[in-house]
């Protein structure tokens, strides 16, 4: 079975062999990766900003050593601030605010497996 752990290996192989598209099927699982052109467009400052993931992993809104979530609806966040985590095993990758604003809604559920570019929360 293909697991999340295989994704960056697939990406690495695509890079090595110069592939723009990869479509892999194994049993019930199918993965299709299409490479875009250049880095993803930066999120522009606007009335409404959606903070998206920049990695893959399990959504962890509350640091395991802290009592409260990094942010809640209504909180003010500053650009660059860490608003949550993506866990892979014991390692935590940050979810960063790409802009400043107030949190209007949280889209991701605790423990949810998120892919790259998944919406985590909205700012206004």
């Amino acid at each position, binding site marked *: 079975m293909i697991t999340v752990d295989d994704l*960056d290996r697939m990406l*690495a192989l695509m890079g090595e062999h110069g592939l723009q598209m990869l479509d892999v099927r194994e049993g019930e699982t199918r993965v299709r990766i299409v490479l875009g052109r250049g*880095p993803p467009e930066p999120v522009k400052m606007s009335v409404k900003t959606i903070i998206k993931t920049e990695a893959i992993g399990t959504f962890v809104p509350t640091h395991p*050593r*802290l009592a409260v979530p990094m942010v809640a609806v209504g909180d003010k966040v500053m650009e660059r601030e*860490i608003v949550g985590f993506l866990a892979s*095993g*014991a390692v935590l*990758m*940050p979810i960063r605010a790409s802009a400043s604003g107030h949190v209007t809604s949280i889209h991701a559920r605790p423990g949810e497996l998120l892919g790259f570019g998944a919406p985590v929360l909205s700012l206004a």
Partner: protein
Amino acid sequence: MIEILSTAPLSMVQDTGRVGFYRDGVGRCGAMDTISLALGNLLLANDRNAAAIEVPILPFSVRFSKDVDIAVMGADCATRLGDLELPPDWAIRAQAGEVLTLSAPRSGCRAYLCVGGGIDVPEVLGSRSTQLRGEFGGLDGRMLRKGDQLSAGRGETRLPPAGMGVGPALAALPLGEGGAVHVRVLPASEYGLFTVESHAALWESDWTVTPQSNRSGYRLSGSQLRMESPVELRSHGVVPGVIQVPAGGAPIIQLADAATMGGYPKIGTVIEADLWRLGQARPGDMLRFVQASYDDSLLALDQVETYLRSVEAMATRLRGAAAGWIR
């Protein structure tokens, strides 16, 4: 360069310690919480033994004069890098001119500031650890003070743009329940000379870390441990973890900066794999001793190694992947 802006006494450079010089009367020293040190080094893609600054008393602040990878590990002390609040056990790229501030700990006792490539001080007898007793190692064999300048071994970054962190070691290596710090203990050579009541007290008492505790050893209060009849011992080798019982009956756990020799009877030894748990125990904290066998002790070391390797593998993978996602 890393400039110390403010520090309480007892902050100093430590790595995993100086091994192999007991016969010359040179103790091990090294970080009190070697797991936090190892995790910080793994996040930064450092050698696991790379030197860091051990900070036992907060607040503490430093300014970076060049961009450098850093990891702040161990005690959770409301860390700020410039105006950015850092989560516990976090590695990130510090920019030139930024100030890092560690405040009073919300949990734990010792914080570790690891840097890319490790703190660059000369090796003495195979280690960069500060040996206060002999006044060598670390920075001129002494504690750090305001105005000290240290440099990191590596300038370029090995971190994803927003840094990365690691979950609590206690969650990966759990031991015991409740609020007490649990450590496993092997009965030592004089164990059999203590009374039956003392044996029961050793395993069943709640022990408290007293304020007479430091890197040399922790003096505990709780029960009185008594021998069937007093014995006279010649001075003998003592290693970190040994639980000595002086005449008063209150045990002392010898730790990283312990002398290499001692003459008190030994009732037990905290196993090597659990010494880091003591490194984060502060005065007033409760301790419980859990009896272990020699085989348990070796297995516990294997478990620590397996955990560190899994973190290392994942950090390495994510470090590579972070570049891959943005193609």
